[in-house]
């Protein structure tokens, strides 16, 4: 199905709540607006077309989603020069955001100025490569619908790959990790001898420490979670970010209480290990 057809498909199911049907209406409206902008563009390759595509003022500029369609149209017509010209416009319009992103993800890394500059350029280059690949791939339709969100996702992938490649995945944000409540970490770090003899499972009952974490450090919790393995993230997010109980968490995720406890313990151990590494780093 081509995007034009997708744009015009409106699904309202009787069982949808008002909220989700409002959301659907908004999405449909947005799709139609983008489709209208694309279809009313001057003929491809004409002076008027390039004038519209290269409009410098953001107020009158062609949406990025429409530019993605234009890139794909240029490719379909075999116009490599046109493709590159439109890509150039896209990169200029998202440059500041990408530059800011590249600088901000490396800001806490202990780097010399020249090393930082080189890494920022590498990170930026990796991101550009991924953006080009995505934009020229006409099967990735969501780029024609919500460019900024796709860009965010691409940056997430690049950030993760880059950090892994550079071996920096666990060496960032030392200051932040210093703020993990010691009481909570220490209580969880002791193996518990349960009635059934299972020593790998700890009951996280230090509610005081958990509440302290939620109250004081909530805004920093996503950063703590970011470097954990993916399967541990939902649990830590629900318990520390939303203040859910283990029982609630188990119910929401459709897993057992025991799995929740085990994963939580694993997550805290990893955070503790990170903290120890950072302490060693800080002490030389």
């Amino acid at each position, binding site marked *: 199905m081509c995007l034009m057809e997708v744009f015009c498909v409106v699904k309202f199911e009787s069982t949808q709540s008002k909220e989700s049907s409002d959301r659907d209406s908004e999405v449909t409206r947005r799709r139609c607006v983008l489709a209208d902008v694309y279809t009313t563009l001057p003929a491809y390759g004409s002076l008027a077309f390039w004038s519209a595509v290269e409009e410098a003022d953001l107020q009158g500029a062609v949406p990025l989603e429409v530019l993605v369609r234009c890139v794909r149209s240029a490719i379909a017509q075999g116009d490599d020069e046109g493709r590159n010209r439109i890509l150039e416009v896209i990169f200029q319009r998202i440059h500041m955001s990408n530059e800011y992103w590249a600088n901000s993800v490396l800001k806490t890394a202990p780097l010399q100025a020249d090393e930082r500059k080189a890494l920022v350029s590498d990170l930026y280059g990796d991101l550009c490569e991924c953006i080009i690949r995505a934009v020229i791939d006409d099967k990735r339709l969501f780029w024609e619908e919500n460019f900024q969100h796709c860009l965010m996702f691409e940056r997430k992938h690049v950030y993760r790959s880059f950090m892994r490649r550079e071996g920096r995945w666990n060496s960032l944000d030392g200051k932040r990790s210093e703020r993990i409540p010691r009481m909570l970490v220490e209580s969880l770090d002791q193996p518990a001898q349960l009635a059934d003899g299972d020593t790998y499972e700890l009951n996280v009952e230090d509610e005081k420490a958990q509440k302290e974490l939620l109250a004081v450090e909530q805004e920093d919790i996503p950063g703590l979670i970011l470097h954990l393995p*993916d399967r541990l993230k939902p649990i830590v997010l629900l318990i520390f970010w939303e203040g859910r109980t283990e029982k609630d968490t188990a119910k929401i995720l459709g897993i057992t209480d025991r799995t929740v406890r085990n994963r939580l313990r694993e997550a805290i151990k990893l955070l503790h290990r990170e903290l120890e590494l950072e302490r060693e780093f800080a002490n030389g």
Partner: protein
Amino acid sequence: MDREQEEAILRITAQYVDEVRAGQRPKVSDYLARYPQYADEIADFVAYYHTVEVDLPGETSITTPLAENFRIAIGSARKRVLQAEAQSTHKLTTLLVTLNNQRLTPGQLADKISLSVDIVAKLEQRKIAASSIPKEMYKRLAEALQQPVRAIEAYFEPLSGRSSYRQQVAETQVGYQVNEPPGIPTQSFRGALEESVQLSKEQKQGWYDMLDHEGL
């Protein structure tokens, strides 16, 4: 994760971001409960979003030219993508090799493009003159082999007239299986149709109409 799942996660997380930007305080638990199959991916995104993205500036007007290092980074990125694209066409050394990669037999390919195995074999051996092959044939082959149309066209171009695109393919044909001496006698596509004993009358007529339509 396949493309469909990726699109689904994009849509779900886009809604979350819209709600955050609208000043609402969406509950992650609602999202995780609604989409438990994507719980890990949603949690990963939420953690990343609130750590890195939430305060980043959005799109900006085109004002000053980019700094040199960023311009170089974009140029290199573009070069890497284009090189990778070109390399992907190197795989089309022969139709049969490409068929193997697609897990198709020559018979299945013939069915997919409404031809017969005997003509597919001639195409494989480049015994049919490129100039006599209808565009529709290239399109069908490209679709069936999941290759760019340009790569298919380049495959059939005669050695002397090969574009740089084709030359790149030829230069890397270390294990090439088909001998192609210069001046190999070739047949026209129409001639191959007429000669075919496997193609039905209806199929032949369909191709004749197409050749007429394209003036071949």
